[in-house]
């Protein structure tokens, strides 16, 4: 076809109008028989993703989902069995959407799947996906790789508070038991310290006991010791962060 608007005369306009109208109608008509073809479930990672350019492009969503990239940033998931409650994720989070309440255990409470000993109970491990900015920083700092972004992206709810995902599996009783154990251990420790202090000097004993109760309040300052054993290169980075 000639250049548009080149023939700007009365009859030129009429011819051009018919030409363009008919080519427009042809363009749309071509799509109708193509409607028999459907979009294939090819992942965006696939080399052939852009090859299919014709046929119905939309998908009937809840019944058919397009596969999403494995490493995409979707919903956060914490494998709580592997979590050592180091609190790094909560610290690095730019929007403070991770809420952790650690309770120190008196002894090692188990091992993660990569063999790291767990020493802290997660009384509370909440991630508020409504606040999340999907930066993925928490997943990079996680020493045991228990905090990941899953492929689940459809978690819209009617109530915004439903976007708060609790990951802790501890019951109220377990939490209070753990607290009581910790308290007991603390007391014993304090008593021991007192005894030591008494042995040294009786005048300083009262001050020491009040100091001994302190670590309970300063819980989040816990240093992730297990990592140091595991991965050496990471340790240096983390040290820098902590400093």
């Amino acid at each position, binding site marked *: 076809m000639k250049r548009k608007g080149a023939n700007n005369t009365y009859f030129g306009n009429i011819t051009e109008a018919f030409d363009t*109208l008919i080519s427009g*109608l042809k363009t749309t008509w071509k*799509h*109708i028989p*193509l409607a028999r073809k459907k979009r294939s479930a090819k992942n965006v990672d696939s080399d052939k993703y852009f090859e299919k350019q014709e046929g*119905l*492009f*939309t998908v009937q969503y809840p019944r058919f989902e397009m596969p999403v990239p494995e490493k995409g940033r979707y919903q956060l998931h914490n494998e709580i069995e592997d979590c050592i409650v180091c609190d790094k994720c909560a610290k690095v989070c730019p929007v403070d959407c991770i809420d952790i309440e650690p309770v120190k255990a008196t002894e090692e409470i188990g091992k993660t799947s990569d063999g790291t000993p767990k020493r802290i109970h997660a009384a509370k491990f909440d991630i508020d996906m409504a606040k999340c900015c999907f930066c993925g920083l928490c997943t990079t700092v996680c020493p045991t790789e228990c905090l990941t972004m899953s492929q689940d992206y459809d978690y819209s709810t009617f109530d915004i508070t439903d976007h708060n995902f609790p990951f802790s599996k501890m019951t109220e009783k377990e939490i209070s038991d753990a607290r009581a154990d910790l308290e007991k251990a603390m007391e014993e420790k304090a008593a021991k310290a007192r005894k030591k202090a008494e042995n040294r000097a009786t005048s300083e004993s009262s001050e020491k006991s009040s100091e001994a109760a302190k670590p309970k309040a300063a819980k989040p300052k816990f240093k992730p010791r297990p990592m140091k054993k595991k991965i050496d290169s990471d340790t240096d980075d983390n040290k820098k962060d902590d400093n």
Partner: protein
Amino acid sequence: MISFLFFLGFLVFYGLIAIYAERKISAFIQDRYGPMEVGYKGLLQTFADILKLLQKEHIFTFAADKPLFAIAPTIIFVAMFAAFAVIPLSVNITGSAVATGVYYALAIVSLDILGILMAGWGSNNKYAIIGAYRSVAQIVSYEIPLGLAVLGVIMMSGTLDLQEISLQQSIFYEGATKNAESYLFGLKFLGINVGKYGGILSWNIFRMPPLIIGFVIFFITSLAESNRAPFDLPEAESELIAGFHTEYSGFRFAVIMLAEYGVMLLTSFLAVVLFLGSWSTPLPNIGALKLADWTSGTPGSISADLWGIFWLCLKAMTLVLVQIWIRWTFPRLRVDQLMNLGWKYLTPAALIIIFIVGLWKLALL
């Protein structure tokens, strides 16, 4: 009476399938699925929508002119539906046998605009009133070429009776009182009378070839008549929400919607009757293959009725399909572009067609 009952039922049935077809075709053109949930492939979607609309509340805005607002959908629907009275269905069923059928149909369809203006004014809504104004401004531009395009047919057939026009184009041409003989491409000197061949050759656009352009003009203006894209200025959804029916809800909205699709059907019926051979078959008799006779039935019997209704509806539906196709292809015209098209291009063209038809009839027929 048969005609009335047929059209009443057919209009509702047509409304259901046309809206479904519109949604599906638009979806396919845009590489989407369209309705898929209700019924097989979404077939019952329109039915569900109508059912929902019937249950809805009639909302009257506080500042609405209530009597006008309430009665406007009825006027729009009645004006549209009354025009169906003169559409002949087959060689036996003539509908209302008015001698001035074409004139009546064009006149009563124009009443439609009154309802639109009432709806727009009564809503007391800026979008509605702008839509109504546009509609009224638009009618001046397109009704003239519309009337002129029809005039060419009337000159050719020498009658205003739609059944008479239909008979002239069919193999039952002996029933017509005048201008019954049709010659191949309107050329009498060739000496080929195509009346007994019937079929597509005896359609008005082939009896009088200049009417092909007349048909194009009629079709373009009929799009404007039914407020369809690319002439949907009165309801331009991207600018005016829904134009004159912005404030309507529930059953009244459903009636306006049905009337809109009804006008599409009506203009298609009129185009078919005037230009495309009405209820006659498109298949001609070729030698021993009496295709036209086989697909026309015998006059006076039920077979002729069934064939007549079948061909008429098939042709009209094809035109409706083209209207839908056009809607989802072309962008909307601006008001000045519509005026430009109506006055500078369609009206002179229609006048020239009338002139040529007149000369042709004097010189060659």
